[in-house]
């Protein structure tokens, strides 16, 4: 047993000694290294962080304490505080206890020794080379190029016998370039070591150069927008993911409450899969030690289920979907890997049906309204479709309501990894208002 799990189990024991009826301790350690450029000047940053998160219950009174350290002394302090707070907290009538232990459902480990041991000097060389490569094109200016690696470990133990631990790695390269007035950015991210910056630079350069010659759309039109996989992923993360969270469903913040079995999203099929080999969100367990699994959320447009942690699952009388996540002082719900199924059309066919193609990223996407499904976002690198050709245009605003236009959603065949924990095809959404 590792030092982290040891510490977690010790914390659980201490909480029970101090009077908690149930206790859970989550211990994490994360080491990251990043070399990035501000313009063309490099900077190197290393961070070694640890954290403990304690959740205790006294009867149905629940409290949490968090600290950014992982010594016994700090944990003891957090445990004491959580037990004290629980004594004063209010009863939660829906509390049904901590998760029970269960075996993992898959064996894929997202850990790459090569990421965990990479040297900062090599990282610096790679970023220097990438900056030099980007500068070879005199039309381009480097805003920032970054290379980061992270190595995390976590352990969860609770008083019902959960005692799990695992480790994972992640690395990524991103580039943000300018060409005159235009800008473009791109990134890749993986559980193993990425070191080829060329595709990242090429894509960022293409977007920057195209946007440097973009013209104003100059009109307001109603019609279809083809969201590339990444822009679609950004929209779904902010608009749909919160609506699929069982906590929001229970508390009245989701328009999908009471809609199980109903057709709500046209023909879309969406699955949460925490077991996907290679997935950025794949792990053996979620943040409360429940096994990750595959959950069908929407099937052919019909709502089949929500994302759950143990609390919401027990409250709704179903099994947890293994989507518990840790926030400050509470256990929340997050997707693991979200997969949007492909449809029947090719990307070319969908382009022909679109007024505008959404590339780059969506500005202000965090301001969409998941309670109503209304959204109004700005596309950083849009292209107008004119007679079968794509012509870059200046940023345009796109608005609509995802549920009102659900029947006009058409996914392309090819499903792509967006490097955001979402796998999705380019997807056409009709009935939107585009202004620019």
């Amino acid at each position: 047993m590792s030092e982290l799990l040891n510490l977690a189990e010790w914390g659980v024991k201490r909480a029970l000694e101090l009077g908690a009826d149930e206790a859970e301790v989550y211990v994490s350690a994360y080491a990251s290294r990043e070399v990035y450029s501000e313009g063309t000047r490099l900077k190197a940053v290393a961070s070694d962080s640890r954290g403990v998160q304690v959740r205790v219950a006294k009867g149905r009174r629940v409290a949490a304490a968090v600290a950014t350290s992982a010594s016994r002394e700090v944990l003891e302090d957090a445990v004491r505080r959580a037990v004290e707070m629980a004594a004063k907290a209010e009863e939660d009538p829906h509390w049904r206890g901590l998760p029970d232990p269960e075996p993992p459902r898959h064996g894929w480990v997202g850990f790459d020794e090569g990421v965990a041991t990479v040297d900062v000097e090599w990282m610096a060389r790679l970023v220097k080379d990438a900056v030099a490569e980007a500068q070879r094109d005199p039309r381009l200016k480097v805003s920032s190029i970054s290379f980061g690696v992270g190595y995390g470990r976590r352990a969860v133990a609770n008083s019902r016998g959960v005692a799990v631990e695992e480790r994972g790695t992640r690395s990524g390269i991103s580039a943000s370039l300018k060409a005159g007035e235009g800008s473009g950015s791109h990134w890749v991210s993986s559980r193993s070591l990425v070191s080829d910056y060329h595709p990242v630079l090429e894509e960022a350069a293409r977007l920057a150069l195209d946007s440097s010659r973009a013209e104003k759309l100059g009109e307001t039109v109603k019609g279809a927008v083809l969201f590339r996989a990444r822009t679609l992923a950004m929209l779904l993360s902010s608009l749909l993911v919160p609506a699929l969270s069982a906590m929001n469903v229970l508390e009245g913040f989701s328009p999908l409450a009471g809609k199980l079995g109903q057709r709500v999203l046209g023909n879309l099929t969406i699955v949460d899969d925490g077991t996907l080999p290679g997935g950025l969100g794949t792990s053996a367990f979620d943040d409360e030690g429940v096994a990750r699994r595959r959950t069908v959320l929407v099937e052919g447009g019909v709502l089949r289920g929500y994302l759950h942690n143990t609390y919401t699952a027990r409250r709704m009388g179903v099994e947890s979907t293994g989507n518990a996540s840790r926030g400050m002082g509470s256990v929340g719900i997050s997707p693991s890997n979200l997969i949007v199924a492909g449809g029947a059309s090719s990307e070319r066919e969908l382009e022909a049906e679109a007024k505008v193609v959404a590339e780059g990223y969506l500005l202000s996407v965090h301001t969409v309204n998941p309670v109503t499904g209304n959204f109004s976002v700005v596309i950083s690198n849009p292209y107008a479709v004119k007679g079968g050709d794509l012509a870059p245009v200046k940023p345009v605003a796109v608005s609509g309501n995802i549920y009102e236009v659900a029947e006009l959603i058409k996914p392309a065949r090819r499903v792509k990894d967006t490097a955001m924990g979402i796998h999705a095809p380019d997807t056409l959404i009709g009935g939107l208002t585009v202004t620019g």
Partner: protein
Amino acid sequence: MGEDIAMGAIEEAISLGASFAEVRLEDTVRELITYVNGRVVALGFQRSRGAGVRVLYGGSVGFASTCDLTREGLRAAAREAVKAARALAPGDRGLAPHPLRSRVFRLEGVKLHPSQVPLEEKLELVKRAYKVAKEGGAASATARYGAHYGSVLVYTSEGVEVEVERLVVGVSASVVLREADRVGDGFETHGASRGFEAFEGEGSPEAVAERALSHARDALKASRPPAGYLTVITRPELTGVFAHESFGHLTEGDFVAAGTSPLTGRLGEAIASEEVTIVDAGFDERGGYVLLADDEGVPARKVVLVERGVLKGYLHSRESAALLGMEPTGNGRAQSFAHEVIVRMRNTFFEAGSWGEEEIVEETKHGLLLDKPAGGQVEEDGTFTFNARIGYLVENGEIKEPVRDVVLAGNILEMLKHVDAASKRVVITTSPFGGCGKMGQMVHVGDGGPTLRTKLLVGGERR
């Protein structure tokens, strides 16, 4: 004890060849209570203790952080920072001189510090807000209490020893109203760098919930806005997002030094209409966040960014100031000890104009009056978007029906030229729940301004 471990790390870095070393120690607490539909869903207390070490080696900057606050833990972080900087050397980086040697910055006049308030009273705050929301007909309601407080200590190899206090508290209420198949939501936050005395009068949980309800009631009746290029009147809270998101980021010294800001090399140039004066300050009597000194221990000076339309200043950390041969302004900030200092805003706001608020509406033939920002974003070239949750159509000088979920887009440098009215009243706000995000770091900020009138692209419905 802080000084002892910090000195050990500084000695270690210098002995390894660093020309400069700095240790930043943090000991802060973040409190959060989330109360949803009559139930505590989060009751949290987070203590952050750790150290960040920054070094200069061969003209390159390296940074490493640790939560191991032993002498050896900090020495190890110092070695890591030197190793990182050495990997980048040679470089052309430096640090502008620090204006201080030794000083302690404390917030004065705090009456009831959150650390002295019992948990029961904090729970009472969210319950009071919730009660008002519920009685006002909310189908769902969330009330939150948050606080962030503690201290940051900065030691450097130049002999700098500065301690700075941090404090912000706040409550928020968010309500959802349902009527037949219509949904209206409203959100309100009150925050201040004060003690619990901040929760009185307009800052009371009841008043906050009442304002959220009022916005939700309007949202219930609201339709999507018209789309197009329109005259837009922004209320202070929304004006603030403008000041911060769309303009402020362009004045950040790191972007200026990298040459990626469109304001690079334009000091003294007229870039906006004469109605426009924009300031970034660590403190303002009208409200907002209080930052007396930044995370480099540099006192926060008031920076006039734009004065009557003319670009006057940039925001600087010690690093960005050195690159441009300017002085640090107290804008070097980090989310926590685990993050490196980068250039950040503090309270960014438009200054008052000469108009009455009603007068601006009365003098507008056709446009939108907008309120309640829901965030925004800016690109390096000044292209921005920001959203208003709620607003009203203005026709012939009169406020008409409400509109909701409005996205505004444009380029700030184009837009500032069209500002043709600013009100006398200025409001500056802050929040303990969120802040400003940049390069993966979140810090507390304040923003605000008067009611402003300009022209912008509005993303809405084609009518």
